[in-house]
């Protein structure tokens, strides 16, 4: 059975992503947008999981990596002819060049990783509440700078005219890629060392593990994945500074916590489950028919429901829907230890 588990741990999330993609092929075009969005959410939440789940350190700052990834990919893949209208004050280096879809995604990952490295070098010394507040500060600074610095992007404008290449195929391949990387990391020496520091930092230190270095490695990797997800995002919708700020931070953290922060399976389940609920409610806000009944929910219901779900899960089942466990063919109790954030 031990040999079956690792395979299952990779295949189950991938299968779920594939299933979502399959659902996307049979539904209407309007619903398909929700499926694509859900797959991009999977990429973001799995990126969050790589750091938060494996290290147990809270980060409110990951959406800033999504934001810089979106900015890098968006600015450089917009056709040269469109740039002056949307980004009149753009620096000339960015103004005169355009790169293709795949290159822009790779660039988004590189920029995300580089930013995470710059931020992580000092910040990974912090833990607990200090880390929470400091990463929040990173989010605020990133949002503030992207909003007003028009040399590097559209500022208050929206990224319209970016080629909308994130269709069902790109979103599902992207999400699957992120899942594979996260799985490989988790199974690697580094991933195991980092989970050791999460379980017992003192014991890990005692056997010679550098908590700082392991956290930094995970932070940079998850920054790269978040940046990549940001690239997917900007190729999906016209993004602006508000769409990669507090609401997305809340939504993705909710997905991670609801699914179960300490497992890859939990991250994928949480992202897809909450996306499904969220999309359904978003539709219901516009008015839909359920079993012949006209349902028309007022705007804002989505966040109420997701917020309530998150609070209920944290109170009743702090280890998340999946119990923070990977899928296994043996039945196991949920992690007794409450969502393993460090004390």
């Amino acid at each position, binding site marked *: 059975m031990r040999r079956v588990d690792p395979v299952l741990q990779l295949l189950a999330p991938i299968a779920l992503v594939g299933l979502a993609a399959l659902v996307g092929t049979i539904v209407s075009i309007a619903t398909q947008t929700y499926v694509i969005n859900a797959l991009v959410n999977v990429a973001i939440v799995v990126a969050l999981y790589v750091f938060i789940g494996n290290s147990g*350190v*809270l980060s409110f700052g990951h959406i800033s990596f999504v934001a810089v990834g979106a900015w890098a990919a968006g600015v450089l893949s917009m056709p040269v002819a469109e740039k002056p209208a949307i980004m009149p004050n753009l620096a000339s280096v960015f103004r005169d060049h355009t790169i293709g879809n795949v290159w822009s995604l790779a660039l988004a990952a590189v920029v995300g990783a580089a930013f995470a490295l710059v931020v992580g070098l*000092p*910040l990974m*010394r*912090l*833990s*607990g*509440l*200090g880390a*929470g*507040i*400091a990463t*929040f*500060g*990173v989010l*605020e*600074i990133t*949002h*503030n*700078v992207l909003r*007003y610095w028009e040399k590097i992007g559209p500022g208050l404008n929206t990224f319209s005219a970016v080629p909308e290449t994130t269709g069902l195929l790109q979103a599902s391949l992207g999400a699957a890629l992120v899942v594979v990387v996260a799985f490989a990391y988790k199974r690697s020496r580094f991933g195991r060392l980092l989970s050791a520091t999460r379980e*017992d*930092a*003192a014991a890990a230190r005692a056997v010679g593990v550098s908590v700082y270095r392991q956290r930094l490695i995970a932070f940079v990797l998850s920054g790269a994945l978040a940046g990549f997800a940001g690239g997917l995002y900007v190729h999906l919708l016209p993004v602006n500074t508000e769409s990669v700020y507090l609401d997305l931070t*809340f939504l993705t*953290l*909710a997905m991670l*916590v609801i699914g179960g922060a300490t497992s890859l399976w939990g991250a994928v389940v949480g992202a897809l489950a909450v996306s499904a609920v969220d999309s359904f409610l978003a539709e219901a806000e516009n008015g839909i028919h359920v079993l012949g009944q006209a349902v028309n929910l*007022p*705007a*804002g*219901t*989505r*966040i*109420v429901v*997701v*917020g*309530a779900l*998150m*609070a209920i899960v*944290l*109170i*009743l089942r*702090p280890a998340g829907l999946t119990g923070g466990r990977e899928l296994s063919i043996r039945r196991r109790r949920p992690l007794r230890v*409450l*969502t393993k*954030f*460090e*004390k």
Partner: protein
Amino acid sequence: MSVAVLSINWQTLADAIGLGAIYALMAVGIGLVFGVLRLVNFAYGQLVMAGAYALAFASERGWPVSVGIALCFGVVLVLSLLMDRIVFRPLRGQSPAVMLVATFAVAFLLQSIALLWFGPLGKISASLATLNQPVTISGVDIRKIAIVATVLAAACLLLLVLLLGRTRVGLHMRAAAMDFRTAQLLGVRAGRVIGTAVLISGLLAAVVAVMLTVQTPLVTPDFALRDTILVLAGVVLGGMNRLVPATLGGFAIGFASGLLGGALPTNQSQYLPSFLFAAVILVLLIRPGGLFTREGQQAVERV
């Protein structure tokens, strides 16, 4: 950024002190609950928001100011007790990070309930608008609210110092903040101490709601959200574990925010949040235990 670009006048200074005073009260409200529950209440701003809506509600119907303020206190107190009962109590014993995430969820929940209930456009709370007018003191125009806020905050803090220092329940609260379990073993009643902390923190939120609605009469669902984020940063900056450093931290960030916001030219003041949060991060790195704590008082990282 040289001092030359700053154009500080007395009015800006008074406004900055007023804002610092309001933030200091919020810091006390957050710090008191943290002291006994080890819980960082991200949803504190939504208590203030609820109070602000109560004031706007009364103001729209033309009710007298005193009724509006009474309604504000009632709503905020009920909400904070409910929050304690429904959210804080089941979360007791969890790590601070889990509780922070949970109150983050509650904050978004309350904010979107306000959005559902009152709509995105906001309501005007105008009953106390006269406090926004300036008074002239030896040739300097100072808004009345800056003075009122400072005096009121000082009075609240004084009362709190008396309560904590001179009464039995205050003693119990200080003991609980220092070491909850030992205090319990020595006969401190947990429920009463926590209840008092939540109640006082709610009272302070109501006071803050009254003063903030004077400064910004337009009440929207994200009312006080930005302020809460800044105050939280200030509290951690000052030193989460002690009430006085936490209060000083709150005051410092409000003062800095008010001063820089009023004194910097617009093309620089738009980057104000970046300056503030960069400073917060820097302080956290240099003094993780807090800016206003003495050596030896800093929280020892327990593993």
